[in-house]
């Protein structure tokens, strides 16, 4: 039994002269929920597809469930479940027909399939809707159905590519309950997402940006280790103007807008508080609230990206 469910070493994928995934390395322990976090186009889907045997890597190696993705892709496919970013079940089949079909594709026989079918329906909350055409389901139901079809054959490793895209928050939460349930059952879950709040649910995260891993660790580790500077949250009704004012200040390390508030990263908290009030008052911008907050993963992410971009474009400095 391999120690790690997934091992990746210097995995690279180039499309022409565009490098989608750049020498990515990581390990995933068995039974954990592993999150791949990044913006659209960062390379998440490409990585997942390589790990599932759907794309050939340009260089590097990876093993999934103990099988090498280059040399034993079919064995990999047998051992994993996969849910793609775009809904890829058959819209013109009913729920039950889809389940039966993919069961057959995974070699589940009559009796075994009959046993699994109700389980999948229950899990997806689709009991009683077996005869509905998949096309008529809403996004949330569809995603759960897709998850169900992905785990029909009880794989030990499951890959989910942006499973909650386009789904309302309540459905998202329910979906993550399913994922937790899987993990508790010993299944390794590899999930990609661009929702920062979802990343909190993972055991282990990697932040990926422009094809490279820029940070990694548990959510807690990331939040405490990466960001050492205090972050102050400024609420105002003129957030954009406030940002413009504060950006120019030399003692401001980073600013970013979060909805109707501004996160300002400063070297010293009390100094920062004072200076912020002063500068904004001078500019005639009212400050509704000013608090120190604990950094969220989003703050971590933005910090890391700007660090990466800053390093890449050295010389075009920002404060």
């Amino acid at each position: 039994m391999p120690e790690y469910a997934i091992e990746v070493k210097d995995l690279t994928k180039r499309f022409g002269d565009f490098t989608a995934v750049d020498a990515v390395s990581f390990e995933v322990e068995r039974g954990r929920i592993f999150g791949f976090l990044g913006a659209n186009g960062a390379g998440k889907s490409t990585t997942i597809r390589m790990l599932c045997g759907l794309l050939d890597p340009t260089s590097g190696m990876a093993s999934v469930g103990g099988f090498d993705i280059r040399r034993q892709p079919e064995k990999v496919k047998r051992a994993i479940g996969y849910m793609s970013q775009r809904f890829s079940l058959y819209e013109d089949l009913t729920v039950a027909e889809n389940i039966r079909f993919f069961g057959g594709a995974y070699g589940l026989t009559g009796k075994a399939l009959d046993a699994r079918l109700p389980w999948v329906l229950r899990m997806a909350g689709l009991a009683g809707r077996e005869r509905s055409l998949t096309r008529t389901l809403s996004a949330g139901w569809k995603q759960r159905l897709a998850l169900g079809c992905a785990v029909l054959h009880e794989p030990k490793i499951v890959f989910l590519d942006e499973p909650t895209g386009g789904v309302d928050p309540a459905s998202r939460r329910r979906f993550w309950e399913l994922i937790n349930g899987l993990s508790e059952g010993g299944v390794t879950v590899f999930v990609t997402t661009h929702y920062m709040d979802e990343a909190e649910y993972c055991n282990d995260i990697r932040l990926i940006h422009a094809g490279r891993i820029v940070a990694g660790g548990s959510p807690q580790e990331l939040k405490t280790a990466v960001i050492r500077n205090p972050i102050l949250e400024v609420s105002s009704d003129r957030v954009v103007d406030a940002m413009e004012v504060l950006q120019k200040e030399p003692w401001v390390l980073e600013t970013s807008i979060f909805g109707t508030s501004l996160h300002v990263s400063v070297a010293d908290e009390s100094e920062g508080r004072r200076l912020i009030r002063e500068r904004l008052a001078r500019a005639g911008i009212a400050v509704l609230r000013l608090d120190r907050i604990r950094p969220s993963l989003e703050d971590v992410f933005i910090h890391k990206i700007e660090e990466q971009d800053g390093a890449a474009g050295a010389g075009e400095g920002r404060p």
Partner: protein
Amino acid sequence: MKAILSIVRKEFLQLRRDPRLFPVLFISPIIQLLLLGYAANLDVRDIPAVVCDLDRSAASRDFLDGFVNSGYFTVRARVGRMADIDRFLDNGQAAMALVVPRGFGDQLAAGRPASAMVVADGSESQSATIGVNYATMIAGRYAQRVMLEKLARVAGAGAKPVQVGAEVRVWYNPELRSRNFMIPGVLGLILMIMTMSVASMGIVREKEAGTMEQLIVTPVRPYELIIGKLLPFVLIGLFEAAFVLAVAKYWFVVPVRGSLLLLFGMCLAFMLNTLGFGLFISTISRTQQQAMFTTVFFIMPMMLLGGFVFPIENMPPFFQAVSHVVPTRYFFIAIRGIMLRGAGWPELWDQAASLLLLGAVVFALSILRFRKKLD
């Protein structure tokens, strides 16, 4: 095996769910056959002609009678001046004109060569070619007759002209119904168009819809996938063939003299090819639109180089060579042989072998091209 059955079942379910596909697959071939069975007709009879007799002698009338009574021509008008012919030819009322110049009878009586003129509307060169052929034959016959009559008069007894007679026997289709030749061909065309189209679009559809991704991440093997996707169309194709055959036999009264089993066997061998080509197309196309164009690109030569209307032996050697890789060539020979001539396995085994060989090659190429990868 299970995987194949799952895929077959899925394909049938999907077919049933598309409300338009089903009628298109089954009803339209019948309509096509009905329409085309009546229209596809290469007999050239009753060619409309204009007659211009400038001589008005007994000889010229005799000569023209030979044309008029031949059954090949229908006289639309008799004009007195050459200039009047233009009108009829220009607006298509007549396809040919027969002109006997003045002095025709006198020339003949004096034993000098006479001439007549056949004018054909070459923009319809099919009728024109045949019309001119007929006209030449008829004129030749008349010439022979005149000569022999002359010789009989000149030579007297003891020097009888010798006439080698032709006893014409028409085999297999004594009434010479053009339809009997055309309909097996139309049958093959319909079968080819239907099966190749759906096969070429079938795999590309899944690529475009994204379901292919989910399918190739399963342990299903390429050959299972391919067989599973194509098997329904084999069955459908056979059904269609049976339908069309029934219409041909009972409505058009085209004979089916040979073995039905062999006939359906040939259809299967043919479908191996059409489906194989369709499959190949879908492995080289990224979108359905591409598949569509490529399919049209393949269907056209198959339609035209297979010997359906244009005889292969009249093609330049290059195209004759190319026709060897066109499955319709073998299928048309086989199906015409079975239906019209009662040909059996001993006569047609090599057509079957060619079909199977060609189909196997195409299939092998496709399976090799089909990889369970996304790029």
